[in-house]
């Protein structure tokens, strides 16, 4: 591989349901300022910028990187927008990673955001569907996600109770996350009794709708020391896809995620993910997905996810804590969510997690994705 790449600065906004004090561009600036300050740098030190945000129909501004460039203060630098649905934050980081690894830039700023309070979320996500083929039945991706969860219940035993435990765990973890805005613990009964929205998905299986932004500074090994003596090194990163209506697409185990994990684990030398990783951050748009990810990421075998959450292994005190930040349950500015997972994983191995630091975390896994559950990426970070 090319040059070694480290995360040397991270920043995110205090996410909230609605920010009426800043524009989309202002939100971006907040995260950028924090990441640059964390890396002890200014925008002048940055060679290139990657902007990632969710689908443009979320926010009424087409190609919004061309607007927010002024707020970033990045005029005349290389600046590009990378999109990949809900996983766009991680996809953007991957593009930045290759700019550094491939010698195009020594330091890249990656910033991701969404200001979901400004648009009609389910309406705009529903336009993911082919206008000829099923769009009139679309409920964002909630109807679709719930439908395949229902299918996984029968085949893999991903019960409503097991998913409820994901909500309980992540909301508990979010209590300690200063950037999360949903701060309310729930019980399994609360989740089970919450209002069905797209059954089996119920209100408390669903993350909040958030305004938020996140940014990271990626650096060559040579320049990393100027920012920190403890970067989070990227041992591997990949982002794979699956044709949305391909024959034989099972949707029971996420094949693109399994492929991404397999490839990245090979690069990073991971042979036993459950044992090797100290901490995992996953982007769970609905609780049911976290169960599915356990299996696709190899934290347990297919069909064992319900038992894994029930055992407490993925809780803060378990042997493989998943989402100590609270994941999307605490805040979900969709376009930023993948980058937030990367930031939380990086902060863990840098020893500076804002909320629930896992003691001596040395190796972290971050997962992200979007679309029809068919865009899936992972990153492995090490101290």
């Amino acid at each position, binding site marked *: 591989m090319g040059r070694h790449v480290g995360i040397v600065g991270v920043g995110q906004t205090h996410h909230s349901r609605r920010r009426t004090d800043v524009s989309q561009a202002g939100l971006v600036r907040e995260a950028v300022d924090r990441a640059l300050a964390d890396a002890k740098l200014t925008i002048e030190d940055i060679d290139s910028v990657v902007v990632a945000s969710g689908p443009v*129909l979320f926010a009424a501004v087409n190609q919004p990187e061309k607007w927010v460039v*002024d707020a970033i203060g990045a005029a005349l630098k290389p600046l590009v927008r990378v999109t990949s649905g809900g996983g766009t934050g991680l996809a953007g980081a991957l593009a930045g990673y290759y700019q550094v690894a491939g010698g195009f830039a020594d330091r890249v700023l990656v910033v991701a955001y969404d200001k979901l309070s*400004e648009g*009609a979320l389910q309406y705009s996500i*529903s336009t993911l569907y082919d206008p000829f083929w099923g769009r009139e039945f679309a*409920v964002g991706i909630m109807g*679709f996600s719930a439908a*395949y969860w229902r299918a996984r219940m029968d085949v893999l035993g991903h019960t409503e109770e097991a998913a409820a435990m994901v909500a309980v765990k992540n909301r508990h973890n979010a209590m300690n996350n200063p950037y999360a805005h949903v701060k309310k613990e729930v019980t399994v009964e609360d989740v089970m009794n919450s209002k069905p929205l797209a059954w089996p998905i119920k209100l408390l299986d669903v993350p909040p709708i958030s305004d938020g932004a996140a940014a990271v500074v990626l650096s060559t090994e040579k320049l990393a020391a100027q920012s920190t003596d403890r970067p989070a090194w990227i041992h591997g990163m990949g982002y794979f896809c699956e044709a949305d*209506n391909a024959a034989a697409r099972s949707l029971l185990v996420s094949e693109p995620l399994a492929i991404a994990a397999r490839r990245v684990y090979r690069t990073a030398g991971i042979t036993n993910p459950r044992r090797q990783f100290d901490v995992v951050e996953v982007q769970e748009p609905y609780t049911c997905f976290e169960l599915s990810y356990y299996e696709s990421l190899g934290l347990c075998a297919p069909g064992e996810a319900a038992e894994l959450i029930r055992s407490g292994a993925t809780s803060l005190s378990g042997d493989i804590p998943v989402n100590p930040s609270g994941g999307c349950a605490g805040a979900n500015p969709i376009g930023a969510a993948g980058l937030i997972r990367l930031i939380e994983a990086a902060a863990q191995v840098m020893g500076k997690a804002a909320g629930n630091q896992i003691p001596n975390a040395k190796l972290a896994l971050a997962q992200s994705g979007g679309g029809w559950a068919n865009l899936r990426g992972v990153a492995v970070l090490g101290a």
Partner: protein
Amino acid sequence: MLPKPDTFPIDMAPLKSDLSMPYTLTPGRAAGAFLAELGQRRIVGSRFKKSGNVVVPAQDFCPLSGDSEFEFVEAPATGTLTTFTETAEGLIGLIRIDGSDVDFPHRLVDTSLDDLRIGMRVEAVWADGIDNSILAIAGFRSSPNAPVGMIRPLTDPAQAVEVIPYRLDLHYEHAFGPYYGRLFDEIKTQRRIMGVRTPDGEGALLPPREICDVTHRPTGTWVEVKQTGTVRAMSIINLEFVGQKQAPPYIYAEIMLDGALTRLIHTVSGFDMSRAKELVKPGTRVRAVWRETQTGSLDDISHFELIDADAK
């Protein structure tokens, strides 16, 4: 260079698709104050602390330097035209308000293209009855004798506008192409659902397509799939949202028609929805029910009904 001729030339008028997306946009501190102050017929700018640049209309971030620390100033309603053009939107010029370090675009009113000169003095023309929009200034008109105004500190700034309603209206005319063309023509005229065979000839891809998604090899011949199928995945929709096309509660279903290898997205109904969980599951057998109308879309299928009548 489409390699294949249309296998079944169809002259289908394009599918019209309209999206009308509502928004509530937040202008931020600077633009929010600028828009609020237009109600008092005051023009607000930003003076950036580090560079000293004055930017009118007010911006949160200096477009010249990227600075973010600023104080509000009140700018005059007079300035100079630095350049102009005319488009279908009207006469548009770049205006430099007296004392500003940058221009901004606005409309030119009460004038014509031939009367415009670079460097001419202009003044704002106020519009009545327009709130929270830069169009509270209708535009700028020639004002040869307008004295050069001054930038002053802004006294008693109004509360910034926090949210502005907005709408994007998008109109599309989507081509059917050879594959969707035949698919929907057959649905319309024959009430047949046609797929294409996979490259191996095993089963049908639906909707039909030129290449196989998995192998990227050309697909095979057309084949009719059955109008019966199996529910592969389902959910019960109670959520209501802006832009929704069906009235909840309804079932979102992904159905594999017999003979097809891929999904058709539709709804299953014809029973008491309170029994939906027990009646409709992955594996449930269903059959298409057609409407009287023939539009050449999936909407020609009203819904899917349960095949096992006893289940009702």
